[in-house]
């Protein structure tokens, strides 16, 4: 039996009620509750504009993706397309899959937009970006929305050395839109055993300049902001002000305490990494929500007790591992995905290849983030660490 489109639509209307754009608008105004606005148009149509809060599952992928997008079969669904036809057919397919409460918006997005109802447009990716980030788009935890967050994010790296190298590399590859790098040092041949941002021919070049060359060669989307200066109590507040997340990959204790205190004062999240010979540590300090560096280590080590890489040596691969974990934590923070390392210290021992994850706690007596702080402005950190 041959059936026309009209026959198919007639059958679909019998099981999928139609609602007008005004009715949908009224439902949104009342609060959607558990209901989902389901856009079944092609991705290109969705990108050009869609109802606020709508979930995109193109008609061609409907049966394949809907159970991930809307797992509960009793979720009320308002399906729409451009003109109201595809959503009616999609609605019937959803009914056949056992979705109990499906309606189709008559007239579709065309009528919705024409009537002056609110709509929104997602980040517009270039064709190059659609290719570059295609593997991110496939992950529900990233997707186009997450990638737009990464491109809008501003991350400041303290140090372009062992830790800063892998962190910067992967953040740039991931498309973190603005990466600031603070380092006053120049590339030395002894750095090249681990500081993979730099190259043999750049020995003598400022590290921030070398970092900028490498990162912009990797991803032209990324704006690299070099700060060839030593971070200090004088410049830290203005350096941090423009950034969302601070990644601490520095190589000395005065700077660690300085970065910590400035982050607490400015309420910036600090993604910490530190290394010694074959071992490394990493955690996330989120001021006033979790512990800070001083809650973990209230006192700096006595001078000489915790030697630097230049004094004690370091396995070249080690900062690669710790710096990559810092990059993962930074990306998760930007996306709001997963469980972060806040409140947990990850300690890696590469010789035994053991990872210990220790539970941290806020110290109510912490001098910067405790109940009655005694340090309320930046101090002399060299003096605090006994280096005068």
């Amino acid at each position, binding site marked *: 039996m041959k059936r026309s489109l009209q026959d198919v639509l007639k059958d679909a209307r019998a099981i999928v009620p139609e609602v007008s754009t005004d009715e949908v608008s009224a439902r949104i105004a009342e609060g959607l509750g558990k209901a989902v606005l389901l856009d079944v148009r092609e991705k290109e149509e969705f990108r050009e504009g869609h109802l606020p809060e709508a979930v995109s599952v193109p008609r061609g992928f409907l049966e394949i993706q809907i159970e991930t997008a809307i797992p509960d079969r009793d979720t009320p669904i308002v399906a729409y397309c451009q003109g109201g036809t595809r959503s009616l057919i999609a609605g019937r397919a959803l009914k056949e899959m056992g979705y109990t409460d499906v309606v189709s918006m008559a007239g579709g997005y065309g009528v919705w937009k024409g009537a002056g109802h609110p709509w929104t447009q997602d980040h517009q990716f270039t064709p190059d970006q659609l290719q570059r980030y295609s593997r991110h788009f496939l992950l529900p935890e990233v997707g186009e929305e997450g990638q737009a967050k990464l491109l809008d994010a501003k991350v400041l790296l303290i140090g372009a050395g062992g830790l800063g190298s892998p962190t910067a590399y992967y953040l740039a590859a991931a498309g973190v839109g603005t990466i600031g790098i603070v380092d006053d040092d120049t590339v030395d041949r002894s750095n090249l055993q681990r500081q993979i941002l730099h190259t043999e021919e750049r020995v003598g070049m400022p590290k921030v300049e070398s970092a900028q060359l490498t990162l912009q060669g990797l991803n032209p989307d990324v704006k690299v902001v070099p700060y060839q200066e030593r971070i200090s109590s004088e410049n830290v507040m203005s350096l941090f002000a423009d950034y969302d997340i601070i990644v601490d990959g520095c190589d000395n204790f005065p700077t660690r305490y300085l970065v910590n205190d400035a982050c607490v004062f400015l309420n910036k999240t600090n993604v910490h990494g530190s290394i*010694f010979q074959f*071992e490394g540590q990493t955690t996330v300090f989120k001021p006033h929500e979790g512990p800070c560096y001083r809650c*973990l*280590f209230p*006192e700096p080590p006595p001078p000489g007790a*915790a030697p630097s*890489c230049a004094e004690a040596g370091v396995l070249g691969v080690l900062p690669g591992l710790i710096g990559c974990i810092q990059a993962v934590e930074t990306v998760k923070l930007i996306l709001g995905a997963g469980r972060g390392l806040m409140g947990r210290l990850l300690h890696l021992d590469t010789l035994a290849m053991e990872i210990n994850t*220790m539970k941290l706690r806020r110290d109510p007596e912490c001098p910067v983030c405790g109940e009655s702080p005694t340090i309320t402005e930046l101090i002399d950190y060299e003096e605090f660490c006994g280096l005068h």
Partner: protein
Amino acid sequence: MKVTIKLFAGLRKFAPEGGSDEIELELPEGATAEDAVSALGIPEGHAGAAFINNERADLTVSLAEGQVVGLIPPLGGG
């Protein structure tokens, strides 16, 4: 009572010679993490952060039979 002390990073050098960095210590009842630190000859201010059964704790806390005390120093390098 018996407790286990686990030393990390630069503190491993305080393990008894030729021994593992996981040390079984016999301590008097009511002994604190600080007592364990001095029993191992770790100078004051060098012990870093203490973790009892993987949770951050003060050195002044009294220990109990069978507990594992981790001592983790801050690491300077980057």
